[in-house]
């Protein structure tokens, strides 16, 4: 299987503590000492009951949210703030409406000081092609369908050639057919060794989706979230949703969730 044998973690979360303060002064604990890791070349799925802090977790992994206590290590070094080496795709594509598709993707190259403008355009085009939207480079987001917007968001998350791709419910706003094709694209990109990313972390409430894509599924408990269990999915890719083995894993996740 892809990347089997490499056990180095690319991302480590150690004893993460995080909470929100309500207006009444009440503290809601989201994480009370959560630890987990993501290995090189691994596809990790994260499941959990709604409101358990899955989205918060992915934002902590991205360096968007600072945990109150605990450490986030990316490639062995503490992660202090977001880096182009980690790409993130949100549930909402959040493209800037005043920029074209190509310009939106190029925004993610803002820190590449060594690249000339032409190089940036060139690179953005490569990734636009990868998500199959070459013909739409000068279109504006308002002119795109939901699925196309998600593809642009994916290209933007990958154009900086990150080692790690984080996805927060990336397919939940799409119609089923679009979601199927986009899932396949993400899987084949990740399987392709010469292309980024090496590892993927995906948060989803769609258990089938998680079983279809993940090497490992981390199931979280209710707040404050702890790890309810970790399921290694040992199935050949591309995985067949209708097979009984597939459903054995799905049931396993549901059992851990309830």
């Amino acid at each position, binding site marked *: 299987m892809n990347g089997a044998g490499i056990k180095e973690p690319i991302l480590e979360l150690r004893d993460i503590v995080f909470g929100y303060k309500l207006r009444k002064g009440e503290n809601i604990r989201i994480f009370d000492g959560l630890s987990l890791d993501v290995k090189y070349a691994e596809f990790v799925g994260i499941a959990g009951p709604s409101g358990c802090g899955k989205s918060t977790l992915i*934002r902590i992994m*991205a360096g*968007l949210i600072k945990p109150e206590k605990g450490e986030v290590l990316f490639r062995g070094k503490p992660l202090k*703030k*977001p*880096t*182009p080496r980690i790409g*993130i795709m*949100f549930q*909402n594509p*959040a493209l*800037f*409406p*005043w*920029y074209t598709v190509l310009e939106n993707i190029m*925004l*993610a190259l*803002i*820190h590449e000081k060594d690249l000339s403008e032409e190089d940036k355009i060139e690179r953005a085009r490569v990734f636009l092609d990868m998500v199959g939207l070459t013909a739409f480079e000068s279109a*504006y*987001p*308002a002119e795109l369908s939901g699925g196309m917007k998600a593809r642009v968001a994916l290209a933007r998350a990958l154009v900086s050639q990150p080692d790690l791709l984080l996805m927060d419910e990336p397919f939940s706003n799409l119609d089923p057919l679009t979601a199927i094709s986009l899932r396949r694209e993400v899987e084949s990109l990740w399987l392709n060794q010469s292309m980024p990313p090496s590892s993927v972390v995906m948060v989803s409430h769609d258990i089938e989706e998680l079983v279809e894509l993940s090497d490992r599924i981390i199931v979280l408990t209710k707040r404050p979230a702890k790890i309810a269990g970790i399921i290694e999915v040992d199935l050949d890719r591309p995985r067949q949703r209708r097979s009984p083995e597939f459903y054995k894993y799905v049931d396993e996740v549901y059992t851990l969730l309830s």
Partner: protein
Amino acid sequence: MAILEELLTILAAVGMSWARMTAALIISIIFSLCVGIPAAVDRVAEKIIIPVLDILQSIPILSFFPIALYAFIIIHPVIGPELAAIFLIFTSQAWNITFGVYKSVRLIPPELLEASKALDLSLWRRLSSLYIPAAFPGIASNLPASWANGLYFLVACEIISIGEARWSLPGIGTLSTSYIMAGRMIEFIMSLAAVVAAVILTNLLVFIPLMRLSERYKFEERAAEIPRVWIEKVSGWLSRVARRISFSVSPRITLFELRIPWKASRILLIAVLMVMVALLGHSISGRVSAEVTLAWAQDVVEAFQRLGVVDPLVMIGFSLARVSAAVAFGLLWTLPVAILIYEKRTLEKILIPPFQVIASFPATLILPLIAKTVMDLGLPLELGAFLMILLGTQWYLLFFLLDGLRSIPYEEEEVCKALAMTRLQKLRHLYLPRILPSLIMGLIVCFGGGWNTLVIAERAVLGGFTWDLRAPGIGRMLSIAVDEGDLALLIAATIWMAGFIVLLNRLLWRRLYEKAVRIVGVA
């Protein structure tokens, strides 16, 4: 003891001014319902009402005040000035409330409209159970701005002089100006403090509870339970009392149960409008004969000829430069401050309440002070005009910019953060494009305020002395025309100024705004 007496005088003056403002506000609300609801529900009405409102709100209020004053004195010589003052305040309060009603009513979900159609509700039922409740948030959210606007013009309309004729209406504007003229600074500061206190109390006790109450009438989802406000309690109590009385006194008040079929209501509306216009025409024409009207028209044509073309253009050019300079300076400080407040949540809590109080404080109250100080110290007169225009405009900009920044979707902020943008990059790629529509909207309102202030800032007769820039300016021209009692010249100059403003709005601002909306892609 003298101070206490003075304080009572000040409080009485504030009370009188507040009564004037309240009268105007009630008329404004009735107007906004009568005009805003038809504009929102009827396509034909919308096509007529919205452009007319647009032009009305771009005419400088102070320039047509003397004209309105003449009309009201013709209607009734004794209470005419008072009616004219209320009318002037009304014109400063009504437009934004009307637009608020129009926008709120348009937000009614189509399902509700269909339901009311399916139930075949009568006109009154539709108004009372759908349109007026839907309009409530639009009215409530515009009350503080309208009050501040009205206050701004209150000062200008309490002291009126046209030619030799002079009126001063009892109120805080008249009183505070008389304090400045007499050099009684302690009393002047006391009157300012009284106005600030009254503004804060009005907002706390009336407007903020009303806005909170109006949350209930919004169609969008809301996060939290809304606590009951005192107005609700009192109104609940009043309605219980009223019900008890109506049950015991009369079998039932049947007036509101009149069933007017919805389809007939448009015809009814047009009929009511025609009757109103006819009544107004009759009340004026009864006192003004056809010959007099014709003579007036000739006077105005003659005034246009006197003015020529070059002079008004030069005056407008000077005035435009003055307003532009003040607005540019305002933008220079409000943009960074708005961004700072937006980014630092804690700063918002500290800065916004005092800013709101300062913003709602009528700058016109301090204009005489600025005029006197600049003249006494021998500073350049243009500096005085600059300060006056700045005071009348800068707050609009700050609040519009803040509104624009607050409308930035959280997801876009997050993308910028994930892409590790620097502050400068964020400013360029997110803030500037996002605030563009609000910025242009703010500039439109700002220039509107600026043109209004010009009528005072370029020249003003302030009781004992005359503030005069002695340089070309269309506001100065208007002021001179008022001073000389030359109504024809006043009308001509007003048409020049209003025409230029409407043209500027249509040719520049409107296009810029539409372009900005297109770029940002807001629906």
